[in-house]
């Protein structure tokens, strides 16, 4: 008796699903509620940490978020270069990576995170440069050194580290790696 009722309920559910899948106002498949949905109002866009925040002027920020990476260089490299020199009082020459102002901002202006799929992934560990971004990478110090540190990272010693080199909670070695919320 129970089995018959169960089969009837399953049959009823299947019918209901079939009818709901035919609704004209939704462009969804019967088993996935989101398939085909269009999201076309641009929100936020991020590649490397902090770069857009620091190098894109307040007036340009909304425009930057609606600029796709393949055209970012043309749109923003020279503005980034002006900003970099301004940060350094016009005295930037090269940095620890040996990049001139135009070379460095040429890299930064296309705001994407470079990732290696064949080796260690890290923002910078002294050897590997821009091969990913781990949770515990001190991206701030890396960025400060490359912006303010000069050719051998010794310039502007009070600006090349914020002396905060770890997160407030330890990370996990296993998925999902991030710590539980406060």
């Amino acid at each position, binding site marked *: 008796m129970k089995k018959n009722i169960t089969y009837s309920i399953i049959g009823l559910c299947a019918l209901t699903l079939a009818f709901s899948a035919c609704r004209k106002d939704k462009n969804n*498949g019967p088993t*996935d509620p989101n398939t085909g*949905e*269009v*999201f076309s*109002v*641009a*929100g*936020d*866009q*991020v*590649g490397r*940490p*902090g770069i*857009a*925040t620091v190098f894109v*002027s307040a007036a340009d*920020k*909304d425009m930057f978020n*609606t600029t*796709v*990476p393949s055209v970012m260089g043309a749109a923003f490299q020279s503005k980034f270069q002006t*900003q970099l020199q*301004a940060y*350094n*009082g016009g*005295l930037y020459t090269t940095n620890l990576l040996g990049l001139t102002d135009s070379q460095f901002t040429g890299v930064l202006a*296309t*705001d*994407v*995170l*470079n*990732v290696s*799929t064949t080796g*260690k*992934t*890290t923002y910078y560990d002294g050897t590997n440069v821009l091969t*990913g971004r*781990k949770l515990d990478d001190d991206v*701030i110090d890396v*960025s400060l050194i490359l912006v303010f540190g000069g050719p051998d990272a010794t310039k*502007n010693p*009070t600006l090349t*580290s*914020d*002396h*905060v080199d770890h*997160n*407030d*909670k330890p*990370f996990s070695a*296993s*998925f*999902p*790696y*991030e*710590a*539980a*919320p*406060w």
Partner: protein
Amino acid sequence: MKKMKFIIAAALILSIGGGIIWASDHADAPNVKGKSTDITDLYVFQGANNNNLVFVGNVQGLMSPTTTQTAKFDENTMIEFKIDNDGDNVEDLVIQCVYKSGKMYIYGPVKPANTGLSSTVVGTASVIVPVTPYSSPTPIVATSKGIMAFAGPRDDPFFFDLDQFHKITGGTATGFTNPGHDTFAGTNVMSVVVEVPKSLLKSTGKLNVWLQTKQKS
């Protein structure tokens, strides 16, 4: 000393334009500030299994514990990882994260229907994971087709003495202190974590990745 004053002056002049905040992406453009589309960080790194790559996308930053109790993902917002695997900075694959009725639906890695700022959800979800509630002692993880997913509140993994940086650009300090203080200590974000086998990314060694949020029209 003269050089330092020059630098501070330059920073001051720049900061008058609206406050330069070196905070990953925590304080953002006028159109997204404070909204569910506001991205704080993107991380991409090898998983515990080196054959996998982990994508972390964080939104809604600077949440206190109290705010986190009622924090939610937004059904009107897609969180999308863009992946370029041939070096032209145009996405070849996307991982799309769409929240619906308590679950995060993860699509991809898949070739997008179109590139750029408008995104269409492609195919059916690769993995669906219930959002981990704030009160849950352990994170809820779903695995399907070799892809692992998590979605929910997490401690903000970002660390930086932003307060001191504000003092520097505001002219009341000439440098960072030692030790510094993590302005983001004690704050949370809403996070999506997706771990995928590298083989699904069709890479010849290098990828370029960026994170976008967008809303339905």
